[in-house]
């Protein structure tokens, strides 16, 4: 009897918990469904009743959004992200290697200096950085965003890699040194291959940052050809002209890549994002 009572209580609790979780799912999913629904309507349909179904689903809105420059913004985001991540990983791994494996005098101070960069926010540097970028003639070039992205992401990435490098057993290196390997050979023949998982995590966290970054891109870029997706989406918002459904379609398409990437590479994503715990 008592066992049965416990079982009933357990079933009741399970249902309650699932109910709670499903309500949360609805809160998350409903805005997205609304977005999807309205991206298939005409502007007039949306303004008459935004929660009604479209008379005819208009997938051409998506095509229009794509043709309105989204393709170009995607390409630009890809190039910017690739350049930034290559730079971040290259410089951070060299830095982390230099600070952990080579017993350089002053390593401790340099570590603190670089790590301190983690606490400094982008906004605080904004005005001087803007003047600097202009003085260097980088304004409205891809490097105007790539260089600050690299600089602002090195501290965190170095920190992530450093703790991993510290865990690599010294014996591997010692054997290599006996074989006459140089420090650089050790770096790219031993340290980097072993660190592949952490490099992948670092790449993903930084991708999420660079892909979605808005503040710097908004100020340092002017040319549509250079604009990344977050910036490109803003150009969909006209002042006197109103094509909302196309904009909604654009938001939908623009959000897909990261979500799809997450669904395909959940493990790396979670490891990457949780190892650093730094919100974009």
């Amino acid at each position, binding site marked *: 009897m008592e066992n049965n009572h416990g079982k009933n209580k357990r079933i009741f*609790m399970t249902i309650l*918990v*699932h109910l709670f*979780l499903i309500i*949360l*799912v609805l*809160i*998350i999913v*409903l*805005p997205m469904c*609304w977005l999807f629904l*309205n991206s298939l309507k005409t502007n007039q349909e949306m*303004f008459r009743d*935004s*929660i009604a179904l479209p008379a005819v689903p208009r997938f051409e809105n998506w095509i229009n959004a794509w043709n309105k420059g989204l393709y170009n913004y995607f390409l630009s985001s890809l190039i910017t992200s690739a350049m930034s991540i290559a730079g971040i990983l290259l*410089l*951070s791994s*060299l*830095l982390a290697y*230099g600070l952990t494996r*080579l017993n*350089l*005098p002053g390593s401790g101070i340099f570590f603190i200096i*670089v790590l301190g*960069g983690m*606490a*400094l*926010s982008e*906004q*605080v*540097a*904004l*005005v*001087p*950085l803007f003047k*600097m970028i202009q003085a260097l003639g980088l304004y409205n070039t891809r490097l105007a965003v790539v*260089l600050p992205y*690299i*600089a*602002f992401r090195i501290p965190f990435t*170095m920190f992530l890699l450093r703790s991993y490098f510290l865990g690599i057993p010294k014996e591997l290196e010692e054997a290599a040194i006996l074989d006459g390997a140089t*420090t650089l050979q050790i*770096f790219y023949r031993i340290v980097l291959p072993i660190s592949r998982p952490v490099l992948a995590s670092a790449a993903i966290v930084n991708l999420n940052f660079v892909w*979605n970054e*808005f*503040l710097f891109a908004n100020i340092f870029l002017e040319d549509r050809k250079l604009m990344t*997706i977050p910036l490109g*989406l*803003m150009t969909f918002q006209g002042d006197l002209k109103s094509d909302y459904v196309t*904009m909604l379609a654009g*938001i939908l398409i623009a*959000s897909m890549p*990261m*979500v799809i990437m*997450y669904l395909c590479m959940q493990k790396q994503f979670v490891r990457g*994002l949780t190892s650093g*715990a*730094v*919100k*974009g």
Partner: protein
Amino acid sequence: MKKKVKWSNYLYIIPGLFMVLAFVYVPIITNVVYSFFRLSSYSSSMKFVALDNYRRLFTSDTFPVMIRNNIYYCVISLIVQVGFGTVIALVLESKLVGRMNAFYRSVYFIPSLISLTAVGLMFNFIYNPTAGMLNGFLKAIGQPGLQQIWLGDRKLAIFCIIAMSQWQYTGYIAMLMIVAFQNVSMDYIEAAIIDGAGPIRRAISIYIPLAKEQLLVCSIITVIGAFKLFTEVYTTTSGGPGDASQVLGLFLYQNAFLHDDMGMAAATGVLIFVITVTLSIIQLRITRSGQD
């Protein structure tokens, strides 16, 4: 191995160190200098005004509004993202959820992958008084009396923006906490079950204390994030209506690039700097004491 220092080995650290110094430290120091001058973006003249920018910042009518809004964002985010996010993580890790665990986790996590501008633009529509989802929904369920102007309402605007952030990031914090809970050794949990501890007791006396460090890290990220708030407001209300949803980050931006007042922007930057660095030092202290 060898005692002798190879100076060439410094070449490993110089490029990275240089980047951080040149693009992070130098601008931040320059910013402090700028905060004592009056300067605009298109004019090359700089006029030394001592502390006048700070005086104008601290005495402006908008100042208390901004600080209040940043604090609202901070406190609500702590309660919802960290507090409620932890509860979600605990529920998801409990045995009651079973195989659906991964599904829930992913759904909650997905909003954090969407860019802030996309989320901002989307919620601009959701909150729209006539064509938006929220008012449409209230009408559909027969509660038109509850309809609001949302982002256009002086009292509601900042809370609408805060709600949007909770929508986006609660799942992210929940995910961080789940990973921390998964690192809790099964031995403790089994011992507690043998002791007859119920799920709530287990959560309070085992999970939370053992994931304390992660909880603190999450709190600090959230708090610092609250004082860096910018894109969420920029893409929705731009600080309006009036200055009801103004925040420090946007105030800085608008002064620098809209109101030709880069000195004031720099002063605001220094304030954000002081706040965030103080909080980071607290974070460092706490995590260190946690390790000891």
